[in-house]
């Protein structure tokens, strides 16, 4: 990974990883169950240990998982949340529904105009 990662490149790594069902299953297993070794993952997922090792190496290269020493000198892999949060920012922009929100504002303004005469009348009543 470059020292100063480009935000678009980070998001792309996450989305490419998620587009592959095996890598998606591996990331999901790490998110759900915490750090695990390739062997742990092979017992939990319908993927061969060799394929898991290959995917984990690729995910580590992309910075989406981090390798760390585990028990009995086995390497454990941990999900790295920083790239996921960058992807989340991308999704948040897509999910921000200003179109619907501005429609709601227009509707609200039209509604208060409709009730306005009644309010004005009330305000003019003798004190």
């Amino acid at each position, binding site marked *: 990974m470059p020292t100063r*990662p480009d*935000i*678009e490149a980070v*998001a792309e790594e996450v989305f490419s990883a998620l587009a592959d069902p095996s890598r998606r299953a591996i990331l999901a297993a790490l998110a759900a169950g*915490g*750090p695990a070794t390739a062997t742990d993952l092979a017992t939990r997922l319908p993927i061969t240990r060799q394929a898991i090792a290959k995917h984990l190496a690729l995910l580590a290269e992309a910075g989406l998982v*981090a390798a*760390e020493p585990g028990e009995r000198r086995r390497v454990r892999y*941990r999900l*790295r*949340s*920083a790239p996921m*949060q*960058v992807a*989340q*920012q*991308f*999704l*948040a*922009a*897509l*999910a*921000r529904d*200003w*179109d619907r*929100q*501005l429609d*709601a*504002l*227009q*509707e*609200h*303004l*039209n*509604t*208060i*105009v409709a009730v306005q005469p009644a309010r004005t009348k009330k305000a003019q009543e003798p004190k």
Partner: protein
Amino acid sequence: MGFPGRIERTVEVAHPPARVWAALTTAEGLGAWFGNAATIDLRPGGSAELTWTDGHKASMRIERVEEPRVFGYTWGIYGLPDDDPRHTYVEFTLEPTATGTRLTVVESGFAQLPDDEYRTAFEANTGGWAHELGELVEYLDANAA
């Protein structure tokens, strides 16, 4: 294709700026069209909160109040932790027109990397939950003694 760092919309509203301003900057207005309820302390640095009946909440920090032209606030990015330093800035601009108001909303800041200081702290703390759980265990041990 690019990272969607900024969102911009302009709508023509058939109501004068003063009325639109009230809808944007009062608890009554915000609670009617934006959230299901709202509180607001309308001054730069003041806070506002939107709540929805499903329990969802959004906290805002008021940044610009130039009645009845510009209203701006910052808020967190949906899906990121509450204490995350990344925020987006939302600015509403109201321009009077012959038929009412031209309302522009710009939300910027989606394409932010956490600042270096934060990133360093973050990388150093890859212990994450394991670390937190370790502290919990220590706390429980200390209190059991």
